[in-house]
């Protein structure tokens, strides 16, 4: 690194930023000073890039789906895969630019203030944020929400690794409560160019809001499984998300226990709903509706904000699944409960761990003293 970026140099205020770009290009030549003299080749950049690779199918499908929904809305039923993708790509790209510029800008500044290297955490959060918001969200709203989530959700706690809530979901929650008109209903999920109007009888409401009612697209199992329905950019395709889940579980980056727990919790409450006659759809359909799959695979498994202990992961996962379905089935106000369920479970993860660890300690003490 050039001397002017070192301490005392003229451009020292750019130190963290320059360091971030430099270490992005190549692994630095720093050697071990204390402890183990050799280290595993793994680093956080690698782990986080795996998450992005895993989410890429969902992102690419989401872009295509934005174009596809647009074509449907204006009554264009021809098959034009590339055209649809290009339309969606141009719509989603600004979301990415805003998410990364605002989020990384704050992250770089905060790292410089703390005198640390820039942590890679926001590369993943910034990749997720455009995937969990409606495509038509005004960019200024997104910018404010990202700034809020990064500053108050992360930096005030001490940066990546110290945060309590998932920053991406916090962004969405901020939008959800601050600008509810842009975040729900039947207009926000379909993007239209200025001057375009939907064809008669078209509704852009998500299947979850319609609850299987009449819609121009199918709401059958396969439509939802493949993902050709309106919704947040990345959440619609269960197939794409499952590809991501396989990558995450194979590499061990995300916990399969959390994913399995979430599914179990959701099925349990869904089954109760079915038996009690509250739910209009069979419980397994709940798993492919809305943001459930995306949340279970990518949001709930964030290693920082999820439960730490192996037993705690099961409890945490089941809590998310159960809560999500409870909101969906028993709460008339909100149609979707995944975001709130995960944020709620994030808040409780430390408590879950505390109980698991303490009961382990007291069990161990009892065993040792008996011996």
């Amino acid at each position: 690194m050039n001397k002017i970026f070192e301490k005392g140099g003229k451009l020292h205020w750019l130190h963290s930023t320059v360091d971030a770009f430099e270490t992005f290009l190549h692994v630095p030549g720093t050697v071990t000073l204390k402890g183990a003299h050799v280290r595993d080749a793994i680093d956080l950049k690698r782990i986080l890039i795996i998450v992005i690779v895993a989410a890429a199918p969902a992102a690419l499908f989401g872009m295509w789906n934005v174009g596809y929904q647009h074509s449907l809305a204006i009554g264009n039923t021809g098959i034009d895969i590339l055209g649809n993708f290009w339309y969606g790509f141009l719509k989603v790209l600004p979301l990415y630019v805003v998410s990364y510029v605002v989020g990384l800008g704050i992250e770089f500044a905060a790292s410089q203030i703390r005198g640390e290297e820039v942590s890679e955490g926001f590369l993943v959060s910034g990749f997720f944020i455009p995937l969990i918001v409606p495509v038509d969200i005004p960019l200024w709203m997104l910018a404010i929400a990202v700034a809020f989530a990064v500053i108050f959700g992360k930096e005030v706690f001490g940066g990546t690794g110290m945060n309590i809530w998932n920053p991406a979901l916090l962004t969405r929650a901020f939008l959800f409560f601050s600008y509810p008109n842009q975040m729900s209903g039947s207009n926000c999920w379909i993007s239209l160019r200025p001057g375009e109007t939907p064809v008669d009888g078209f509704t852009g409401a998500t299947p979850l809001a319609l609850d299987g009612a009449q819609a121009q697209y199918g709401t059958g199992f396969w439509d939802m499984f493949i993902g050709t329905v309106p919704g947040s950019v990345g959440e619609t395709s269960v197939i794409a998300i499952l590809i991501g889940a396989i990558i995450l579980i194979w590499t061990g980056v995300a916990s399969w226990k959390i994913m399995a727990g979430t599914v179990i919790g959701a099925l349990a409450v869904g089954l109760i709903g079915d038996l009690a006659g509250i739910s209009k759809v069979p419980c397994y359909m709940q798993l492919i509706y809305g943001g459930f799959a995306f949340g279970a695979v990518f949001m709930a498994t964030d290693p920082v904000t999820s439960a730490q202990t192996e037993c705690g992961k099961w409890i945490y996962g089941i809590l998310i699944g159960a809560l999500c379905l409870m909101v969906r089935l028993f709460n008339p106000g909100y149609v979707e409960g995944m975001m709130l369920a995960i944020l709620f479970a994030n808040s409780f993860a430390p408590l879950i761990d505390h109980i698991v660890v303490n009961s382990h300690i007291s069990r161990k003490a009892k065993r040792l003293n008996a011996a």
Partner: protein
Amino acid sequence: MSTTIVLKKGLNIPISGEAELRVSKAIAPGIVAVCPPDFKGILPRLLVKEGDPVLCGSPVIADKKNPDILLTSPVSGTVKELVRGDKRKLLTVLIEADDEQKYVDFGPKDVERMDAEEVRQALLQAGMWPWIVQRPYGIVANPKDTPRDIFVSAFSTAPLAPDYGFCLGEKIKEIQAAVSALAKLTSGKVHVSVCADTPGQAEFAKLQNAEIHSFKGKHPAGNVGVQISNIAPIRKGDIVWTLSLLGLASIGELLLKGKCNFRRKVAVCGPMAIQPSYIDTLPGMPLKQLAPFYGDRPDGIRFISGDVLSGRNAGVDGYLGFFDNQVTLIREGVDKELLGWARPLRYKQYSRDHSYFSWLMPWRKYDMDTNLHGGQRAFLMNDGYYAKVLPMDIYPVYLTKACLAGDIDKMEQFGIYEVLPEDLAVCEFIDPSKNNIQDIIAQGIDLMLKEMA
């Protein structure tokens, strides 16, 4: 023999340069160093001046708190130099060896007839006491204590660790004598842990006056701390003692023959070692004497007295540690690697993590260097990620964080009494956040020592 304890957690680090099972050289060093910092918990008080003659077995340093504990000279010769560091801290006593070695005669003992006090005195006098390391904290044992048990690991699973059967198999008589003597010092038993798969271990499994445990597993299964935790964990207030097999051989020789012999077979290994093999030498040997193993070009090589995980960076001007029977030579990894983490394969680097593919090729060995492979970050992966390589009933990240916070109560709860930094070395190796976990644990232990004193 009892049943085999199988430890599923752990990781063998596939580093290249294993020492061939032959003694390629016997080195009689001209200068030998006695280094008080090798002995944790000892405050050195000098007993010699520059120019004083010493015999092999003469006291050189005593402990200030416990004047009975002596460090003795491993050679006969003349005290050449006292090396001090900051605040006049005594670092090294250099002793120039005579051509002909003379020994202090302590007289052979009849081990069967000795009582505990006699054993204690014999070990203290001859400077054999510092072989005994106390748990918790890993300090030199206090002679006034009666330990709950004594634990010995008869094998090592550390990277490139020497083969104990090859090194010490011929000293089985001495080891037996030491075990019998030490059994008198404890209210419990002497526990000896052997490795279930290694044929050279059969000798050690036949030891009398000891309870034999058989272990099977990857590193750190050979660490005595891990073995204690799986045999009879240390509770608050417990004191147990641990010894290395090397120490038993020395102690046994003292008891049987009446003289101090610290000679040992030392594995010179690592990717930078030329024809890695064993040498026969003394502790305190200058590492410069290993010139044939590094081709006389020490630049860019790290000289580690011990193994690559928990050994000490001694430098080419350093000395072989008292407790060590391994010297590892690895390359300093100062070069930058273009797009390292972004390459899908990264064929030449080892990673346990499944986001690379090296775990699919368990037969490969790697020329590892000292590169950190990343920048330091906050803990991001959760506890289970680290617990996969720690075969103990504790939560490694919780313990580490308690040490970082300096919270004594929490450290106690999370098991600080059971661990030494070396036990969490593999956790440190695999940490993607590149935290110095061993150093954090060591600081936690220092804090405990200070608070509990």
